Structures are given as structure tokens and as C-alpha cells.
């Protein structure tokens, strides 16, 4: 068990704990902060997997933009009431999800990594390599993604625009 594995295990435990917090904490803001933590941990895992570009993007996009948006909305609506979970439903859902985990974990643990991983060069995961494949073979999906984002912007504007007469929350 070398140092890398130890670090990974620490990160993994932290990640699992924080994601559990996301799901089981009762205050929405706490959930959001737990999720931010989880995202940062995942970003670190990315960087440790020789994907620095994606890792930093992860921090920028998720932690920097999306989660701030979540917080913004949470404060916008500021739902004071805490939810009352129904025990039976909890039980069913929990059992099902545990079942899912019970399916997936052994499946992945039995997965044969095949031959030893490709000894990647120093450049692997660097911005220009990513850019080359992104604007090379994946240029069409890239354009489509841009269209998707445009649609999302318009949709958000239309949805959140307060129509005349009715004054919404906040």
C-alpha cells in the first residue's frame, strides 16, 4: 500500500462522508456546502488522475458556478420549513439503493483492469491535448453542446421571468 493509495483512501472516505451528508442533512444550505466539499474532493481526484484541466474546470463550473447558483436560489426562496420524511418510503428507497450498490460494487471489483495501465506521457490531460481532441474529433458534439447551453439560457430567462401582475417569491 503506497502513499498514493493512502491518499486516495483518505479522499474516498471524505467523499463518501460528504455525499452522505448531502443526502441526509436536513438543512438545505448544509447539503449544498457538503456537495461543494464533495465536488472539490472529486476535483482533487481528477487532478490525481492526470486530468488537471478537467479538475480545475470541475472547480470552476461546479463549485464556482452551479453551486453558487444553487445557493443563490436557496437564499432566494429561503424555505424555512424542514421536510418531514415518511419512514416507509425512506425504507423502500434506501433498500433499493443499497441493492443497487450491492449490484454495482461487486461488479466493479471483479472488473479485470486488463493489462497494466498505459504509461501516459507528461502531456496527457494537458490543456492542448484536451483541446486537440475536443476541437478535433469531438468538434460536432462541442457545437451541439454550445447550442444546448444557448437553449438553456433562453429557457431559464423565460421560466424565471416574472409575468405581469403576479408578484412571485422574493
Amino acid at each position, binding site marked *: 500500500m503506497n502513499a498514493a493509495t493512502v491518499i486516495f483512501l483518505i479522499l474516498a472516505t471524505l467523499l463518501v462522508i460528504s455525499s452522505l451528508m448531502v443526502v441526509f442533512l436536513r438543512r438545505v444550505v448544509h447539503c449544498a456546502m457538503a456537495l461543494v466539499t464533495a465536488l472539490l474532493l472529486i476535483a482533487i481526484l481528477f487532478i490525481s488522475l492526470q486530468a488537471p484541466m478537467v479538475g480545475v474546470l470541475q472547480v470552476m463550473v461546479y463549485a464556482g458556478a452551479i453551486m453558487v447558483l444553487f445557493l443563490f436560489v436557496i437564499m432566494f426562496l429561503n424555505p424555512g420549513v424542514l421536510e418531514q420524511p415518511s419512514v416507509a418510503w425512506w425504507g*423502500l*428507497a434506501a433498500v*433499493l*439503493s443499497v441493492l*443497487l450498490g450491492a*449490484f454495482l460494487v461487486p461488479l466493479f471489483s471483479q472488473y479485470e483492469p486488463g493489462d497494466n495501465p498505459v504509461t501516459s506521457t507528461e502531456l496527457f490531460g494537458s490543456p492542448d491535448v484536451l483541446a486537440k481532441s475536443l476541437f478535433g474529433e469531438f468538434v460536432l458534439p462541442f457545437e451541439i453542446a454550445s447550442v444546448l447551453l444557448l437553449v438553456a439560457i433562453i429557457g431559464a430567462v423565460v421560466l424565471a421571468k416574472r409575468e405581469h401582475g403576479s408578484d412571485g417569491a422574493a
Partner: protein
Amino acid sequence: MVSAEFSTVASGLLRWIPLIPLCATVLNLFWGRAWGNRTAGGLACAAVGASFAIALYLFWQLPANGVLRDPVYTWIESGLFKVNVAFQVDALTAAMLLIVTGIGFLIHIYSLGYMAHDEGFVRFFIYLNLFIFFMLLLVMADNLLLLFVGWEGVGLCSYLLIGFWYRDINNTIAGNKAFIVNRIGDFGFILGIFLLVTGLGRQGVWTLDFLELQKHTELLSPAMIGAITLLLFIGATGKSAQIPLFVWLPDAMAGPTPVSALIHAATMVTAGVYMTARLHFLFVLAPATLSLIAWIGAATAFFAATIALTQNDIKKVLAYSTISQLGYMFLAVGMAAFSAAIFHVFTHAFFKACLFLGSGSVIHALDGEQDMRKMGGLNSRMPTTYWTYLIATLAIAGAPFSAGFFSKDLILWEAFSRGAMILWGIGLITAGLTAFYMFRQLFMVFHGEFRGDDHAKAHLHESPAVMTFPLVILAIGSIFAGWVGAPEYLWGSRWEHWLQPMFGAVAAQESSVSTEVLVTVLTLAVVAVGFYWAYAKYGRAPAKGAPSAAEQGFLYRLSLNKYYIDEIYDYLIVRPFTGCSRFFAEFVDPRVIDGAVNGVAAIARGLSWVWCGLQTGNVQHYATGLLVGTLALLAYFLGQS
């Protein structure tokens, strides 16, 4: 046999002949009410007048034995089968063109006066123009399908115009009757077209073009031709009111009188004759059909004439006389004397239109009274109408040197010279009957003293000039129109020379002029007998008027009630048919069919309710469903590996 095509400057004009009335129809349809009666009526008349002018021009342009063609565009093209919207004018079409547009023009003008006080004025002229359009389509079509379109179109217009005064239910019923009876005929007609297309198609010739058909007739087996011509003739009986489908025409008199004159006397009802003449190259190859046509024609002529003897409605008499004259025409067709048939169409158009318009003038004067027993002594009150009526009566009765004399005589001579003695006899007797009932009508209407009430007597008046002018023109026509077809022993027939080449050389009848003169004299004698009988019975002692049906004999009542044909049809055909359809409508459709459909729907709904419970509307439940499905798939694949 004519197939030489001439495409002169004139041929470009062809399409405008039908198009102008159509344009008038559309314009009046949208803006007629806004423009008002005067403008709308003027527009309608002008349109038909323009068509008439073009028709005249083409008539002069038309080269001897020539054909003018104007292909507009390709209408249907499926595989080898190709149908154009194309117009053609040859001698036959030219004759029909002149009749349709000329008579139509006069009747339009007449209608201006006749319909002046009707609130449906604009609608009337819209229908009338539409009819002219379809009629021209019919006579100018260069293929059978386009002809059929016109055929159906005129049927539609006739229906619309018979039921023109739709507020009276009887008119609507009459319209329906005409339409339905025509459907029967048209069904036979379209079957005939199908048979023709497939019959030629099997031989590899996919066409309905008349010129093409004429070239390829030999491809068809005689039996096939017989069937085709028979079916087409059924269509003709429907449109031209022959036995057994003549019952609609008398009821069609419910329409306005100009309509009766134009559609149900001059033009539309002769469409059947035109069609047979147009397809003569088929009919001449089917002797059986021809003889059937001849017999049916003769029977119709006689039959209708006997009914006309006793009718008291002024227009009914004319209607039955029309049927009988049509019978003459088909007799000629049956004799394969197509030019004679068309000749009779030509002359008949003049005097029958004149008669109808005259009767219309009378009815107009008596505001709506049609019963001849309430008329009489009108000759002094409305002289123009009287004199024109008299001339037309003479013409139809076949008085010497009148239009009817030449044409009817020609037909009888054709029958005689072809040795069809029985048919000739029937025709001869019918001629006498014709003379009788026409003069009976003349005496009852115009002679003696007036039998109506004083109120009606008070405002008897001659019709306005706009109505009498066409009468005069038509009266002149009824005298001189026949002269173009004079027999050989007189100054000879230009008509024959002009039209005959269309139909190929007829078997030259070897018979001396003397016999022909003899036959003519015999005919005149019979006519004279008929005239005298009428004079004796109605002209001399008009005071007692028509005897009531009661003290008459059985034959009289039989004739008066039109041999109970309508009742017979009603019992034999209509009742069982309606009963059958009632059964289907009231039992089969609601119980069986709807039951099946609703049953299926009910089952589906019942099943769906079972599953509706699953749709809670809660997103998370759906998500759970997704998860369960995923688990199932995972389990399946894990189980496999």
C-alpha cells in the same frame, strides 16, 4: 374520316369559350350581391354573348373537315395513361357550340326580364353561367373523361336550378329526383368508361382521347364494344330522359321556366345525343345496341306523346313533348343517322326553347298560373307571345317548310329508307299525336275566352320587350333553321355535306325521289289529321274547356296519370330500397358496427383504469420505477455473465 389537325390562330381562342362564363360565375359569386342585379345580370349575359361571338368566329375559321385543338395542360398522368385538359372543335362541336351559346345567350336576356323581381336573381345567373361553362366543357372536351366532367357538372347545375326556389319542399324533392335518376344513368356511363379504358389498355393503348379512340376501335372485340356502348347508352337514357329513366324530366319543370327552356329542352337533355354522335365510331360497330337504341327511342317518342295528350299543366305538356322529340333523336341515332339526329337537336332547340319561353311569358302574365284550364283567349291580350307560340307550334308539329318539318321528316325518311317499317310507323303516328297535343295546348291557352278569375284577368299584360325579343328571334329561327337541311328534291341539304363527313359515308340509300316525296306527303297527312282532331275537340267549342277526368275513359285516366309510372317505380324500386337502407341505418349501424367500435373502446378504457393507479404524478415514484427497471436489467445481465 377526319384526323387532320389544324392549329391556327383561332385554336388559341378555344379555351376562352368556356372560361369566360366561368369567370363571370366567380365574379358574381363574390361580388354579385355587392354590384346589384343590373350589373350582375349584365355581366352574365355579356359573358355568354362573348362566348357566342368567339364560337361564331371559330365557326367561320373552321376548315372543311378540320379540327381545331387547344391543349391546355396535362390533367392526369399515371403510367401510360394520360389525360389532357384539352379542347377541340370540329363540325359537330361547332354545331353544338352555336346552339349552346346562341340559345343560351337569348335565354339569358329573357331571364333578365323573367327573374327581375326574384330575390335570388344573382344566384340564378351564377347557376346559369356555371351551367353554360359545364355544357361547353361537355361539348368541347377532346377526351371522354373531360366530357364526363362536363356531364356531371350540367347534372349538378340542373339539380341546383330545379330546386332553385328551395323554400317549397316540392321543388327540392323534384331536384333530388332528377339528381338521383341521373346518378343511375351516370353509373352506367362511368362503368362504360372504365370498360373502355381497361379494354383498350389490355391491348396496350391507354387513352380516352376521341381521335386516338377512333384510330384504335378495331382493337376491341365486338362483344366488348357491345357492352361498352350499352353502358354508355344507359348514361344517355339518364341524361336525355329516355325509357326507363325519363321520369325526372316532367318534375324538373318545377324550376324557373328559362331553366326549363335552356337546360331541359334545348341543351342539356341533348347531351346524350351528342355523346352518342361523338362516339359514333363505337356505336356503328355495335348493331345490337343500335337497334336497341332505335326501339327505345321510338317507344319513348310514342309513349311520351300519349301522356302529353291529356296533361293540363302547360309546362308538363311541353316536358313530355320534349321527351318525345328526344325519342325521335334517338330513333335517328339508332338508324345510325347521326347527322339527322344532330339536325333535329338543332331545330328542336329553336322551337322548343321558343315554346318554353312563350309559356314562361304566359305564366309570367298570369303570375304563376300553369293550369291550362284556367287560361284561354290570351291571343288578343299578348299578341307577340301568341304569334311566336303559333309559329313554334307549327314548327314542332312539322308544318311544311318549318324547321321541324325538315328535321323530323328526315328522321322518318331515314327510318323508312332503312326498311325499319315498324319504327317508321310508330314515328308517323307520334307525329300525328304531336300535332294533336300541341294544337290542343295552343287552343286551350290562346283561344276561346278567359277562364281564370277576374283578379288574374285584371292585370293580364304582354311581357316586356326584353322577354319578347328572344321570342321573336327564336320564332324566326324555328322557321328558317331547318332550311339548311332541306332534302335533295328541294334545294338540297348543306347540313349533310357539312356534317356528314364527320360520320363517314352512310350507306347510300337507293330510292327514287318519288318515294321520298310520297313519304313526306304521308307524314303531312297524318299531321293534318292530328291538327283537325285537336281543332274539333278544343278549337271549335273551347267553352266547355277540358272535360274532367271522371267522365273520361280508362285510357284517358291512364294517360292523365302517366301510366302510373312513378307509382310503379315507387313500389318496385324505391320502397324496397328505402326499407333496406332503413334496416341498415336503424339496426346494423347502431347495434353491430357502433357496438363493435364502442365495445373495443370500452374494453381498452376498463383495462387502462387498472394501470392508472400507477401514475401517481409524483416524480419520485417514477424515479423509483426507473431504479427498479435498472436493477432488473442488471440482475439479468449479471445472471447471464
